């Protein structure tokens, strides 16, 4: 098992190097360049810009710049923001808890509800429930997330005044759990709605696949109850493709609740990304790209481990 982990981690190194080269190259090719923001500032003169250029190391050849930046990734120095000169890694990590909280709660809701809908749909295929669930998922996926977000704010925050419209805490209530939970509800539900729609479809097809296997008939031939057949026989087999999907999707979910975080003014990674994009904060954008890449690798590794734990055929000796 340790050998397997080490090998997978070693395989990740060239992947990360590739991602960093492509990302660095793209940022380098982007019009404007990192110094463009200073040219708009009338108080900054040409010699200041030259000085900043030298200070940032932008006068050096591209490969030297890349070497400096990429070696910093491993030592924890991810560069500094243009505005404020704060360490990039710190700026990103600061946003992680808020995103984790929102994503964690939305995913938990979505996986539980999505699995339940999927299992019911698969066991009662083409029933009224299955048809309603299928069309409901299609509707939820067809509407843009921002529409659901705005509707939720309109109904629950503006009209009914049950819940706050955005942010994490009321002013002066920072750190209060109750206030945090109240702020968490709407963005969680909006985000969960979309993820539930996708996951109910995944779960349905994974369970249909598992239910059609020969060993499910064997389980019936043994006289096992529906509950035992579903939980002990179908579930572990259906869970395998779902876990693999989760491993791939999780990193993107964590880096990318862009719309929901923006609409609900949730101070997470998604909003950091949108803000950095509008402000041409290249160091932050490149940092987030690397962060996501690392997450993808870790997510897949965790999924592989989980699947190997379920299915002995995939265990490497």
């Amino acid at each position, binding site marked *: 098992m340790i050998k397997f982990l080490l090998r997978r981690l070693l395989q990740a190194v060239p992947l990360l190097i590739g991602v960093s080269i492509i990302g660095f190259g793209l940022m380098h090719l982007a019009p404007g360049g990192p110094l463009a923001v200073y040219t708009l500032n009338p108080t900054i003169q040409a010699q200041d810009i030259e000085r900043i250029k030298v200070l940032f190391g932008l006068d050096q050849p591209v490969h030297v710049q890349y070497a400096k930046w990429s070696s910093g990734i491993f030592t924890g120095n991810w560069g500094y923001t243009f505005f404020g000169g704060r360490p990039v890694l710190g700026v990103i990590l600061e946003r992680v808890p808020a995103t984790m909280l929102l994503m964690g709660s939305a995913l938990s809701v979505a996986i539980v509800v999505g699995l339940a809908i999927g299992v019911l749909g698969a066991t009662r295929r083409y029933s009224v429930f299955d048809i309603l669930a299928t069309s409901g998922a299609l509707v939820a996926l067809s509407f843009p997330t921002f529409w659901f977000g705005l509707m939720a704010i309109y109904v629950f925050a503006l009209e009914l005044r049950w819940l706050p419209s955005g942010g994490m805490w009321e002013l002066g209530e920072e750190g209060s759990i109750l206030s945090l939970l109240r702020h968490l509800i709407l963005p969680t539900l909006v985000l969960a709605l979309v993820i539930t729609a996708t996951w109910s479809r995944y779960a349905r097809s994974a369970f249909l696949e598992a239910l059609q296997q*020969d*060993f499910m*008939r*064997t389980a019936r*031939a043994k*006289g096992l109850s529906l509950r*035992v057949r579903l939980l002990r026989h179908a579930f*572990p*087999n259906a869970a395998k493709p779902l876990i693999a999907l989760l491993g791939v999707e999780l990193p993107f979910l964590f880096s990318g609740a862009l719309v929901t975080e923006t609409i609900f003014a949730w101070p997470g990674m998604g909003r950091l990304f949108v803000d950095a994009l509008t402000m041409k904060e290249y160091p932050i954008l490149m940092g987030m790209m690397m962060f996501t890449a690392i997450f993808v690798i870790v997510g897949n590794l965790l999924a592989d481990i989980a699947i190997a734990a379920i299915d002995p055929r995939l265990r490497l000796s």
Partner: protein
Amino acid sequence: MNFAAALARIDTAAVTQAPLLSVRSLQLHLPSSPQPLRLVDGVSFDLRRGETLGLVGESGSGKTLTALSIMRLLEPPLSGCVHGEVALDGVELMSLPESEMSALRGRALSMVFQEPMTSLNPVMTVGQQIAEPSMRHLGLGAAAAGARAEEMLRLVGIPDPARVAASHPHLLSGGMRQRAMIAMAIACRPALLVADEPTTALDVTVQAQILELLGELQRELGSAILLITHDLAVIAENAHRVAVMYAGRIVEEAPVDLLFAGARHPYSRGLLASIPRIERARLDILPEIPGVVPGPGERPAGCSFALRCARASARCHAEVPPLAAAAPGRRLACWNPLDG
């Protein structure tokens, strides 16, 4: 197995017994136009305790569907199209509610499937899977059921049951897996064992071992076995009686030695003639039955075999021959039978 001895025992002891399994007019017709698909078309037979009935026929003749109908293992919508009577030890199975039927499955009647790889759950150990029927039907706890699973594995001739019980199916050979399937099926000592092509997926040498094992278990447990196969050689060595199925119907039924000595239905005769024999000249062409089995939606009005039959008369094309007693222990559905 000592076939003659077993037959003798059947003849003396079993004839007076009421049948364990009694199947009457079993039907599986799927609604379709212009005519329904007659997958199983009025199958009737009896099976006594300790007896093996071989159900033989080409693929598509309805053998497996007959077995699944008896076990009530068909899924909707097929399950809703099954009609007829199936009595096990006097209990009418077809009208039982699903909860009562599932209490019988694995206990009073159980099934061994053709493909032991896909019929076992890949993520559970063999021991866990064999233990399940004992937990479900005998009320054993996990530990007791696990011990019983190892005992069952020993019974089916596995030398190191503890290791095999702890293994997952993919680590075992095909023969070992089928032994495990059989151990699972007999865990609660069922009165009826339905074996659907139990050796088709196995090597020839392993086939013989598995069939021998079934025979031994039958002598030990006294179970009745419904042995489904397309392989007449398997029937010849392991069944007491044989029922030949063609296009969803039984066309001939006889004690196995009588059928092999002289089949009376032209189809049975053709089937027997198409077995390759070592004593035949090498370049001899294997006799075959001309034509193909009519599909379940294109059954002719008369005998289904009439179109391929050299002896067919006008009556054969017009009227379905009933399966009627031709001699003691022999039934035949043919208007122009051959001499026995």
